[in-house]
């Protein structure tokens, strides 16, 4: 056969920028109308927002108070500790990205352990260990973005394993464990977070021995973690149910015991399938940290509200809340971006 038929170029209106425009934006008269209308609308909104942001808005309220937004009441002479923690996280993030590329399983495990160590290290660093070396900064006065991130990260890290445990417990063949986990999950899911937070504030001290007095930030942390764990558990359970019976049978048939079947075959597949749902739950947990304002803590939003109350910045709520909104947006976007990356990375060869 001749090759000339293959090498003919398609009509110019079908390809390139023009072709794309014609196909997607102007293929019919009402498409064209919609396109022009939407572009006009977007332009008006963009103009309004930019004009406000660049000309009308007085960003002084944000720039002057930036430290307050970030670390709240954390003593300013100790701020190097916050910077050091941020530095540690950045280093760990870079190391993780590099190691992921190398794809050596042993190195990956080391990185996971290193993350846990770094997390504990930064907590110790921020809180202080031993009065003489690093003076203590009581968790009770943590506030601002630092409190938001601490609550979010601790909540996520702690609620994930608890959630998996609850999900497995709910499927247990031992009635006591099953009933306990099911009741826990259903009760927590039937109650608003704010109720759980108030309960944590008021009830935890009643259950714990007097020697173990948790301050209010820790109590909020416990409340958020226990709340989120119930939702993670339901997500994980959904993932577990999607795994066909044949996978369990194949695992048993090659001689694996039940724990290994769960840990090596079922859970990895279930968690992989549930990444979007679980990350969604984590993002919602992160945003829900704003509710701690109701129990008297000053997270980023609480600080924002306090700042608008300062007499010299009266009437500048827009600037302050726009700034807080942008920060929430950025942090949440990072999380969902990471989730998509993770899905892609783990999705190799999925059926």
């Amino acid at each position: 056969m001749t090759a000339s038929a293959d090498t003919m170029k398609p009509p110019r209106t079908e390809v390139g920028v023009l072709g794309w425009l014609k196909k997607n934006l102007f293929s019919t008269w009402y498409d064209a109308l919609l396109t022009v209308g939407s572009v006009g609308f977007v332009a008006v909104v963009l103009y309004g927002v930019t004009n406000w942001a660049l000309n009308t808005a007085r960003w002084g309220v944000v720039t002057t108070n930036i430290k307050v937004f970030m670390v709240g009441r954390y003593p300013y002479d100790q701020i190097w500790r916050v910077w050091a923690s941020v530095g540690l996280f950045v280093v760990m993030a870079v190391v993780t990205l590099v190691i992921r590329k190398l794809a050596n399983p042993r190195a990956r495990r080391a990185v996971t352990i290193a993350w846990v160590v770094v997390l504990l290290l930064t907590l110790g660093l921020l809180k202080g260990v031993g009065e003489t070396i690093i003076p203590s900064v009581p968790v009770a006065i943590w506030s601002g973005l630092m409190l938001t991130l601490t609550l979010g990260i601790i909540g996520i890290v702690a609620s994930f394993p608890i959630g998996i445990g609850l999900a497995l417990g709910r499927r247990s063949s031992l009635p006591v464990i099953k009933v306990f986990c099911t009741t826990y999950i259903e009760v927590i899911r039937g109650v608003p977070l704010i109720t759980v937070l108030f309960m944590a504030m008021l009830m935890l001290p009643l259950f714990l021995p007097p020697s173990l007095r948790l301050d209010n930030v820790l109590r909020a942390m416990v409340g958020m973690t226990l709340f989120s764990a119930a939702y993670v558990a339901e997500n994980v359970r959904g993932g577990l149910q999607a795994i066909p019976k044949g996978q369990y049978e194949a695992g048993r048939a090659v001689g694996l015991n039940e724990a290994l079947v769960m840990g090596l075959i079922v859970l990895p597949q279930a968690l992989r399938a549930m990444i979007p749902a679980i990350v969604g739950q984590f993002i919602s947990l992160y945003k829900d940290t704003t509710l701690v304002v109701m129990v008297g803590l000053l997270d980023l939003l609480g600080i924002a509200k306090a700042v608008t109350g300062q007499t010299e910045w009266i009437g500048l709520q827009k600037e302050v809340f726009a700034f807080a909104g942008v920060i929430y947006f950025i942090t949440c976007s990072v999380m969902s971006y990471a989730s998509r990356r993770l899905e892609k990375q783990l999705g190799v060869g999925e059926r």
Partner: protein
Amino acid sequence: MENERHEASDGQDMIVCREVHKWFGDFHVLRGINLIVKKGEVVVICGPSGSGKSTLIRTINRLEEHQQGDIFVDGIELTHDIRNVHAIRQEIGMVFQHFNLFPHLTALQNVTLAPIYVRRWSKDKAEGVARQLLERVGIPEQADKHPGQLSGGQQQRVAIARALAMQPKIMFFDEPTSALDPEMIKEVLDVMIELAKAGMTMIVVTHEMGFAREVSNRIIFFDEGNIVEQAPPDKFFTHAKEERTKLFLSQILTQ
């Protein structure tokens, strides 16, 4: 039970079932099975669907539980003791109709998983053995692919390699070619024929009568939860005694 005598029956008993009964709810699936499989014997089980033939082999490695009767595998009694169950499962390699490969692992990892975690082999040793096995089933070049990237026939061959990796003394095949496209059936049967000729003890639930004729020592016809008839292949196809067997054969051989 009247035991048919044939050339492989001088070995030791690998599988002994005595009066095995099983019910699914009220449904009586296995109705007093008596079966002895000798070392090195290749037994083909055929019969209409729902007759309990898959359930029988699934019962022998405790994927299903029997309610009455005794089962021994290589001298180990199948009891509720989890150690016995694990010991028996390690003696038996199982190949499923729908392959049941682990989709999140590569072909090689599918094969090495159990040796590493159950036999506690080093990763190097397990991978060495796994590569040899993938070579033996004819797909060494697919080692690093995931099951989703392989054809049905290739997946089933990985599944056979996975079962062999635990160095079982017995292999069970539960309709290994039923889920395959016709052009892939032969590549799987060839692997099974090679295994049978190498002296592996095998129980194969299948309707592949060509395979049964070529390598089996004995064919068992199963119906309504019991063994209706068993005979070496030459006798089975030409001199079936029972009406039900003849009817089944006439249906399956004209297809």
